[in-house]
């Protein structure tokens, strides 16, 4: 583990922010305060953070319908996101996008996306731009095990290979696309990564619930891609702790499955265990972060509730740059 104490603390805090952001949304949505469809990232934090801790604002990411974690990991403002999800005019997208369309282009976050599979070609385009700039920057697209069946994902992989675009395809295999199992929906001779391999990409695989595994793997992937070797793909095995959307009865889960993954596959518990075993960070320090994060999320919710609401006349702004 080559991370400094500062880096470790930051990674933990980021994962914790995502976790509490989502746990709190889970509660808030149940009270009917938040409109629309919301897909929670809870459980997959180690992937978003393990990937994005390597990036700066000039690296780009493109996200999915389950995008809060990617946004937060890439540096989107917690308050701005919460306000957006509440539909405030002060939200990151002025209340026009909502949970499924959060973006912050200045931070290199090119958008969550409500259309499954739509992000991959966009990331290839961003990667082609970065290739032209010649600064060794990369574009990353996150896709689920369901999104990997959409034609756009395949077209994007092939286009990236053909054009040697510095694009990284991160597959988050959480074993479900909505209510359907990975075993059923994804035809492969092995796994998602092996498909990517057949397109001529170098691929990696790692445990997506282990921050250190993600982080170390991504170091290699990024070195390879930043060096101009063309695109690459990584498959992370991970878990989502909530339903597909809020309200999902989750009949597809096995008995005790949710309890088991919370107990055995929690990336935060795993992180704490690892840093304790290696005597890198003290539990009390992490406890203090936990407190701070809870306060931060409380404050974000309070701010979102109090924030200015959009007005009818806002509907027609920003359709075009010039009218």
């Amino acid at each position, binding site marked *: 583990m080559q991370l400094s104490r500062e880096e470790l603390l930051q990674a933990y805090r980021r994962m914790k922010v995502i976790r509490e952001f989502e746990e709190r949304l889970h509660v808030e949505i149940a009270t009917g305060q938040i409109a629309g469809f919301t897909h929670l990232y809870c459980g997959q934090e180690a992937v978003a953070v393990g990937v994005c801790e390597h990036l700066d604002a000039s690296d780009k990411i493109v996200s999915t319908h389950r995008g809060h974690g990617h946004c937060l990991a890439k540096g989107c403002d917690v308050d701005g996101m919460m306000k957006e999800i509440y539909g405030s005019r002060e939200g990151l997208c002025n*209340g026009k996008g909502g949970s499924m369309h959060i973006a912050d282009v200045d931070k290199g976050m090119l958008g969550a*996306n409500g259309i499954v599979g739509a992000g991959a070609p966009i990331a290839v385009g961003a990667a082609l731009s970065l290739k032209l700039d010649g600064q060794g920057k990369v574009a990353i697209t996150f896709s689920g095990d369901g999104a990997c069946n959409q*034609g756009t994902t395949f077209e994007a992989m092939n286009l990236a290979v053909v054009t040697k675009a510095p694009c990284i395809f991160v597959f988050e295999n959480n074993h479900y696309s909505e209510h359907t199992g990975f075993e059923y929906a994804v035809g492969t001779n092995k796994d998602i990564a092996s498909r990517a391999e057949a397109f001529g990409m170098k691929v990696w695989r790692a445990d997506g619930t282990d921050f250190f595994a993600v982080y170390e793997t991504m170091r290699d992937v990024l070195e390879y891609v930043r060096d101009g070797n063309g695109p690459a793909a990584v498959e992370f095995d991970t878990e989502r702790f909530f339903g597909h959307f809020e309200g999902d009865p989750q009949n597809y889960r096995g008995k005790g499955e949710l309890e088991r993954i919370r107990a055995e596959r929690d990336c935060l518990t795993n992180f704490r265990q690892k840093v304790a075993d290696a005597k890198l960070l003290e539990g009390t320090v992490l406890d203090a972060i936990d407190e701070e994060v809870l306060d931060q999320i409380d404050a974000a919710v309070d701010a979102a509730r109090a924030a200015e609401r959009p007005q009818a006349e806002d509907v027609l702004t920003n359709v075009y740059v010039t009218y």
Partner: protein
Amino acid sequence: MTKMMYRDAVRSTIFEEMQRNENVVVLGEDVVGGMGTAGGPEAIGGIWSTSTGFYDAFGPDRVIDTPISESAIVGAAGGLALAGKRPVAELMFADFIGVSLDQIWNQIAKFRYMFGGKTTCPAVIRMAYGAGFNAAAQHSQSVHHILTSMPGLKVVMPTTPADVRGLLREALRGDDPVMFLEHKMLYGVEGEVPDGDYTIPFGHAKLTRAGEDVTLVATGLMVSRCEAAADALAEEGIGCDVLDLRTTSPLDEEAILDSVEVTGRLVVVDEAPQRCSLATDIAALASEKAFASLRAPIQMVTAPHSPIPFALELEQAYLPSADKVQAAVRKVLDWR
């Protein structure tokens, strides 16, 4: 008569038709649900609960759960139809015609024509459309104008459980590709449903309110907004015909023109933005074929020319409301 929800009308009609005709086959994402999971099949039966129980009754060869691949879903429906089956494919959201349009527009709509009439293509593509759930720009759209513009497709937009049953039966028994558009906000609406095996022929609008002053034409969720406006105006002695088109292709031109001939005033209400919409389609029809009857400019009450915004207040402002319909009626009445 039985009371039934719109979503149950969809489900029961397909179910009965599957019992009646072994060629009817259902396919789509999560139409079974639970495939390949510890929980096992039938975890959901369609995210709109429009295929619950199908898998248990008809098995995996007639109730086909698919990966997230809308082009393949519609294309497979086309292949099933060419091979003699009667597929009913579900697009979870109408917005997903974006990822499957070629198979709708360039394939199933055109097979019969391109092949010189030597095949039929009885594929029914169902899709949930419309705003009202704050599902934002990619999960709330109305797409009937796009589909209506495409020769070879029939486009159906039922508003009541009773119409769902009659129109869906007609779709399932016909030999043409049908786009069956179900408004998300109507799934939970209950209504009386006639008994018996009735069908409703396409191309017949339904007059849901009668009046002699103004003609209101609408589809889907907008019908109820027109009705609300008409009811409010009736209290002031203003009488409106409200026409629920039910199908936009074929279109019941006669019903529209007959009404306008009497009223001389037309308000068209459309959940989509105005440009190249069904609203303009009907306004143009009347301006050509009922010109002599028109006593005031046609008014179109539509969504504004913007993507659909997320926030509650914005979506509300975006959608045509009964108030806006009322205002349009007053405007045509106040002309000159």
